[in-house]
């Protein structure tokens, strides 16, 4: 290049508007992957060059590029000779390969030419992204993506070119970033996360899952749940399965609300009942039963971590009783949460105070609280600002500081002092409501946090809770995992989740109300049998989801069917597994089936289907002992001289809540005929064994 030409080039470049480091250079680094966790964004940097993770700290990045390494990363006279350009364009050896494209390189060169300044011309206020929610006609269709940034100087600009678009499922959608265009490769509802600087927006792109349009407008609707679910199904062209028959439904409802099978009389009565509102009546009856209290105490014990302290079982028992009482009284869940957060006193007397003993220190306390009451995982923000969520290190350590003064002895009390160090600053963290505000010295931080958490407009509390209940009733959370709620993990049915949360708040945070709402929907009543067109659906509720029973529920069901009890440690005979206060109560079966340890919160666990669990079911003591027992229901029947068919039918009712079909009954009678008494007993045992091992028994369907 001749001297004058070079001069001219510089003059032209200088004429252009000044490039802003924070809002125009950092996005290039993020988009090119320079500051990702795998490259220079790692805690220790890479190749001696460290950038803040995803550009979270512009000042540090500026210093790293312009000042460190004695300023050799940039070449002010000949920008294109700058290391910061020559490496990522592979002019020099670069482990990260050819990372920077021509546009990005040009802009960085221009910025260097302008003097590599950081004048902070403007700040990002917000971004808009499109399409937020679009339905494309078919796979391989494309959708243009557009992101507009708004800055505090009143300007806005199209930053699509500098936005990172990340498909949540890289096999379902892909993004051609040079054109900012998404292509969909599979039917379904997909998410692409748009990230510009520290802002993220999920974009929903859907494609119908079948070829033929369907019309669900004439489907019966129990309540608002059905309207939301059906509108999504219609959009995705997923036809619905029929309503489940009465015996399937009554079994399902019992398992979901009271964690046990209906007994024969309950099931038969329900089937014979001809009242049109019999489903609603049964829902209400179960919600008011003591069995409901038992079962939900078990579920809450997993969530709220009821386990004994070393050499101290009294606290756990008191905690368990307290939970039981709250559920019996239908204590509003907001009040329950507030009490748990604030309770102090002797854990042998104040049940709720045990909540504070479930964590060993303030940080794990903060993680526990955010997981259970906000449905979020805050722990990533311990070491760095959460890259996929809004949480910062100040949020994390600030929430820990809220709980820093709790003395977690047998007597839970508030100490005069107690700090948590904010690892970012090295200073004691200032108590903070995450994402919201710092709390002054004169404020009771726990009180302030509790007030914020359970206020009706809190965006987390009600949503996290109804999502968890939904998961219990339908087998999958609207947000899944249920304790990972964040902007970048959107709900399958966001409007429905909002509506459920609103309804929950409006009805005084009543657990029974929320469950009733779900149980009375047509969606809940659908059969789990898929049809040819909705078989691929695993999250839109065109059919019910079949799921394994929980370990405790399964072993209790075995006891109910056979009439032979299990003994748990020193507990009295007849104690049900779901009633156990201590998750370490000896039980090999529960261990093999994978019960929740409660050291961390469980959202409900399915019995293990691993080989050791199957071997145990098939060949271990769990079922074998019960079928050969000389004390159970089978032995009574055999002694009674009842007809074979009568015995078979009784066990069908007990295990499956239905009558055997004629074919089934004939088959079993054939197997049992013409045998001497000893043989017949064995065949009956084997019949019962097979009933207890079959999938219809072991699942909630």
């Amino acid at each position, binding site marked *: 290049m001749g001297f004058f030409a070079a001069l001219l080039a510089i003059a032209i470049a200088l004429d252009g508007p000044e490039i802003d480091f924070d809002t125009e250079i950092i996005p290039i680094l993020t988009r090119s992957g320079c500051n990702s966790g*795998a490259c220079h964004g790692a805690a220790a940097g890479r190749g001696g060059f460290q950038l803040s993770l995803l550009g979270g700290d512009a000042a540090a990045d500026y210093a790293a590029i312009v000042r460190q390494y004695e300023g050799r990363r940039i070449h002010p006279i000949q920008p294109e000779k700058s290391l910061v350009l020559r490496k990522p364009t592979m002019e020099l*050896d670069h482990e990260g390969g*050819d990372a920077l494209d021509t546009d990005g390189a040009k802009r960085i060169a221009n910025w260097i030419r302008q003097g590599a300044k950081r004048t902070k011309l403007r700040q990002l206020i917000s971004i808009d992204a499109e399409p937020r929610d679009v339905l494309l006609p078919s796979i391989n269709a494309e959708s243009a993506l557009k992101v507009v940034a708004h800055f505090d100087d009143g300007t806005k600009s199209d930053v699509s070119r500098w936005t990172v678009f990340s498909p949540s499922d890289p*096999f379902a959608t892909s993004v051609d970033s040079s054109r900012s265009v998404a292509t969909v490769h599979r039917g379904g509802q997909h998410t692409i996360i748009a990230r510009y600087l520290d802002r993220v927006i999920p974009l929903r792109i859907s494609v119908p899952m079948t070829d033929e349009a369907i019309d669900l407008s004439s489907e019966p609707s129990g309540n608002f749940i059905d309207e939301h679910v059906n509108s999504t199904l219609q959009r995705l062209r997923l036809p619905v399965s029929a309503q489940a028959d009465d015996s399937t439904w009554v079994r399902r409802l019992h398992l979901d609300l009271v964690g046990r099978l209906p007994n024969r009389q309950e099931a038969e009565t329900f089937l014979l009942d001809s009242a049109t509102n019999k489903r609603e009546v049964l829902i209400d009856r179960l919600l008011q039963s003591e069995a409901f209290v038992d079962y939900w105490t078990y579920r809450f014990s997993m969530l709220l971590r009821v386990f004994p302290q070393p050499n101290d079982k009294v606290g756990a028992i008191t905690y368990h009783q307290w939970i039981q009482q709250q559920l019996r009284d239908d204590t509003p869940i907001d009040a329950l949460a507030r009490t748990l957060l604030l309770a102090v006193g002797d854990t042998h007397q104040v049940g709720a105070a045990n909540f504070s003993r479930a964590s060993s220190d303030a940080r794990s306390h903060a993680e526990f609280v955010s997981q259970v009451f906000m449905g979020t995982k805050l722990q990533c923000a311990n070491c760095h600002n959460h890259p996929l969520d809004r949480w910062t290190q100040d949020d994390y350590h600030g929430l820990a500081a809220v709980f820093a003064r709790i003395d977690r002895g047998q007597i839970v009390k508030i100490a005069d002092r107690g700090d948590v160090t904010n690892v970012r600053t090295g200073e004691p963290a200032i108590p903070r409501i995450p994402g919201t505000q710092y709390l002054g010295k004169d404020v009771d931080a726990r009180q302030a946090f509790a007030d914020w958490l359970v206020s009706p407009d809190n965006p987390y509390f009600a949503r996290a809770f109804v999502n968890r209940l939904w998961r219990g009733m339908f087998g999958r959370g609207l947000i899944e995992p249920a304790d990972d709620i964040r902007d970048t993990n959107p709900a399958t049915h966001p409007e429905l989740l909002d509506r459920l949360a609103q309804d929950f708040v409006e009805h005084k945070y009543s657990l029974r109300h929320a469950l009733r709402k779900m149980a009375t929907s047509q969606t809940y009543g659908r059969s789990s049998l898929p049809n040819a067109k909705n078989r691929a659906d695993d999250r839109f509720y065109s059919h019910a989801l079949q799921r394994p029973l929980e370990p405790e529920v399964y072993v209790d069901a075995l006891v109910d069917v056979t009439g032979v009890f299990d003994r748990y440690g020193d507990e009295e005979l007849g104690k049900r597994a779901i009633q156990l206060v201590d998750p370490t109560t000896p039980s090999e079966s529960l261990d093999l089936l994978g019960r929740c340890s409660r050291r961390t919160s469980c959202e409900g666990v399915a019995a293990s289907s691993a*080989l050791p669990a199957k071997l145990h079911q098939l060949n271990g003591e769990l079922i074998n002992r019960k079928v050969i027992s000389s004390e159970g229901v089978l032995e009574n029947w055999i002694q009674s001289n009842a007809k074979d068919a009568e015995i078979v039918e009784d066990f069908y009712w007990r295990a499956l809540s239905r009558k055997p*079909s004629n074919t089934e009954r004939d*088959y079993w009678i054939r197997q049992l005929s013409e045998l001497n008494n000893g043989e017949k007993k064995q065949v009956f045992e*084997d019949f019962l064994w097979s009933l207890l091992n079959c999938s219809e028994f072991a699942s909630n369907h």
Partner: protein
Amino acid sequence: MQCIDKRCDGVDRRDALRLGSLGVFGLTLFGRSPAFASIGDRSKAKSCILLWLDGGPSHLETFDVKPDAPAEVRGPFQPIATNVIGTYLSELLTRTAKVTDKIAIIRSMTSPLGEHGIANQYMLSGYKPNSVIDYPSYGSVLSKVRASENVLPPYIAIPSVRGPAGAGFLGTAYDPFSIGGDPSKASFRVKDLDFYPGVDAERMNRRRAFMDQLETFQRRHEKGNANTDSRFEQAYRMVISEKTKRAFDLSLEKEGIRSKYGLGSFGQSCLMARRLVENGVPFVTVDYNGWDTHESLVLRLKEGFAGAKVGVGLVPTFDQGFATLVEDLDERGMLDETLVIAMGEFGRTPKINTRGGRDHWPRVFSIALAGGGVRGGIVVGKSDAIGESPAERPVSPSDLAFTIYSLLGVEPSLELQTEDGRPVQINQGGELIKELVS
């Protein structure tokens, strides 16, 4: 230039960019090529024994000694010569030093992941964890692609399995089977494998026929919804097979062999692994815990307990089991078709910390492989003077995955389906570690 070479593989830059943009915010623009150049039909390994050193073993106290580094890096142990001229190991690996000619060491493993859970997943699947797809581990993939009539489960973990070595999206049917106890104990039995008292094969067969009938009835009742439970089938076959029960019985081994492996849990687990491989199990993981040595290197790596005269710590115990396994397989003519891998999720920090231990260090670490067609007596790659970064020939967990699959005769570009029918390649972005097989 080294990196330019990587582009001479027929992958154009646009493809590389597209591939690179797949990660969630990861943007792994490392210019690696998609699957190509596996070893195809030349693979020899029929099975694989993975000695998983859980917690992350120190490379500096095992396969990558730095005698010339400053004391705080060098650590307390000296190097020793091996039966391969020019290759030195830590003095704690005396037995391994005698079989080094059968072993390939990689000293330039590198990964960005320094937390146990995610690092495990990366090393055991070759995929960085992501929130949407839960990738299967090697053993699970092998279970899936190797059709086997064998009654023994295709993927067995001794004594049990750590979280992320599972089947991922392949589903629990391909999870490893944990033998669930310590095979060095005289009382060890695989739980619930022996017939329940009063039940024999005949009754078991009748029960099974009843079960089949019930599932068929229910399919009719529910119009095709009941899924046949493959796990039940497998459990049933194990219970009725005598051969299965013998495979787990170490008392059938000669006493001399048992003591040669080491009578502790790890040694006997290695021996169990050999018996299982002999009985046709394609993938066995021996899980050896305790390598997360944030403190007291001498105590934990060498002595095992305070004041031990003969070291029974992690490294001597590993040394005995590993070297004996390689030797034993070789003597039985099984080494060529059995791939043995010894590795953990990462290495340890170059500088010894204030508690006399080393912390997590994924940027460079070492692993060892033997048998299954791997060239013995070689060292691949090199770390820098203090074992901080790769100095030559960085090898990623994805490259390792590509290579493991290739050695086992599984095409790394093979696509498996997730439950909802989505195709996922078993490896993406890896390259063959050519030195190991050429």
